[in-house]
């Protein structure tokens, strides 16, 4: 009997916590369909009728789909670069014995612990000198060198790849480049996919660096920069419904994607952490 009551309260608590995680998004969707006056008058869970007006108000100010397109233009190449170059670097560090490989590995570990703010000013200054301000290059090219991903994939290669497989391929006369692309890359695919999910989400949500690099015109902004700059629009600040609508447009696609891929996304979080 006591066990049943205890279990009931545990589930009640868990459901309560789950509701807290979801309710702000539900409120957002409802409010996105209501006018400023309706929102002012009180909260209900019944959708309003002003979705169209709110939508138009947002898009009069910004075309958020251009922001999404820009975010994809940055996030997709950056993710591919991180995946490919982290894999090839991790493989080389794990398998080949060459001078300096330990130094590279130690530098990678050190840089994993260094907070990003330490390079921020120097990075901006470098991009400024290279004439890369207001281009996407500073958001894409650095993705080639992602220490955290290399660190993880190196452990992954060591745990999954058997050296005898490589030796067999070498005896058969396969070149090293061919061995990597035809044999190693497919074997590493699950690990690479896991890390790519995390890299994509990170790139998609990134705010501070795009904020510094992309200053004008607004048509170049990535989605987070665009959403954040809505704050300075008087029209939208005056109409809360439009603000909810803008935020909803940025969030709903992610929630839908999460419903389908949550299993993979969650496995990508734990994969990045230290494991025995």
């Amino acid at each position: 009997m006591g066990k049943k009551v205890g279990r009931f309260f545990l589930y009640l608590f868990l459901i309560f916590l789950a509701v807290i995680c979801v309710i702000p998004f539900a409120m957002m969707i409802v409010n996105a369909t209501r006018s400023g006056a309706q929102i002012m008058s009180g909260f209900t869970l019944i959708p309003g009728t002003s979705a169209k007006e709110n939508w138009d108000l947002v898009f009069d100010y910004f075309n958020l789909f251009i922001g999404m397109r820009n975010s994809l233009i940055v996030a997709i190449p950056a993710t591919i670069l991180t995946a490919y170059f982290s894999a090839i670097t991790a493989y080389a560090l794990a398998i080949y014995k060459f001078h300096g490989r330990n130094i590279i590995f130690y530098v990678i570990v050190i840089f994993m612990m260094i907070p990003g703010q330490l390079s921020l000013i120097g990075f901006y200054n470098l991009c400024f000198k290279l004439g890369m301000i207001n281009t996407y290059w500073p958001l894409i090219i650095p993705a080639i060198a992602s220490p955290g991903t290399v660190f993880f994939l190196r452990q992954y290669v060591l745990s999954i790849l058997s050296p005898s497989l490589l030796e067999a391929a070498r005896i058969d006369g396969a070149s090293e480049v061919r061995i990597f692309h035809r044999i190693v890359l497919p074997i590493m695919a699950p690990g690479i996919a896991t890390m790519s999910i995390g890299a994509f989400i990170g790139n998609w949500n990134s705010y501070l660096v795009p904020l510094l690099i992309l200053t004008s015109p607004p048509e170049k902004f990535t989605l987070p920069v665009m959403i954040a700059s809505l704050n300075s629009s008087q029209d939208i600040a005056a109409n809360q419904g439009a603000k909810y609508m803008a935020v909803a447009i940025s969030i709903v696609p992610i929630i839908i994607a999460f419903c389908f891929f949550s299993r993979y996304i969650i496995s990508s979080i734990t994969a990045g952490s230290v494991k025995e």
Partner: protein
Amino acid sequence: MAAKKKEEINLTDNMQVVNEDTEKKVRIRSKLTSYNRWGYAFVVPFVVVFCVFSIYPVLRTLYLSFTQYKGFGTPKWLGLDNYIRVLTDKIFWQSFGNTWKIWGINIVLQLGLAFLLTIIFSDIKYKVKGLSIFRAVFYLPNIIAATSVALLFQALMDKNYGSFNKIIYDASIKLNKTFSFIPRYKMVDWLGDKNTAFLIIAIVAAWMWFGNSFIMLMASVQGIPTDYFEAAAIDGANRWKVFGKITLPLIKPILLYVAITSLIGGLQMFDLPYLMVRPGNQAYSSIRTAMMYLYSFGFGNNRQMGYASAVAYILFLIIFAFSVAQFFLFNRKEDK
């Protein structure tokens, strides 16, 4: 490289006189030792980009921290002046204090909740089900961009328009009708009040991150071999003993990892406070984090990049010291 290749060819040429079997062996051996050279070729793109976009900026920031620099022209050498100015600036210390205040509340809530959930889901008596569904729901806020979350809560917590105040207000009116001793709710300006703004930001940050911490802790619990628990059950250990003697010690490394990564991330907190409370707001000075302070000097209207660089290095040294301290603190407990 070319010379070595020639040698290899010469070697194989000479081999033609020897019988075929030895020839094959030698060729294989020379191939096996020379393939390591490919390591250099494979790491070149990473090393080049890493040096240019990671190592150089860190060193450049270090150099600029000793200079006066507006973002263009030649930096003027100042020595340690910037560092002295940072350490004697009251606003820096206020921003630094704000960061700790927000992070401190956030980490207590975030790790506390994550820990509680880990206890619940790893309890041997209740055997709570539905882990994968709850885990996904708890993680949901973490996948949304902090910018969108900031704007959403800015709207929800608004004094006059915000749904949060509306719900409390409507409820208080209803209660007031039946129980007259319950006063009507007076709208609180959650994000405009010095006493609440930092609290709201800390709670929102915890809301975003507790699911992430929970997943990390839970994954390490699931990594514990089940025989440990079975053996404990046979020995008649109760659930608190199992938790304290088996689960807790084994998830300690992950707990440390979560705490350190949260510290590194938390002390750089920027998006949430920067977007939820705008300059001009009464509460602004109470939520300005160290990162916002750095941003305002490095990228604000009157750019002082040298000064901002010194801020970055001082913050780094402090974070580094605390990470090391945290590490030793955890390890000492383990020795007992």
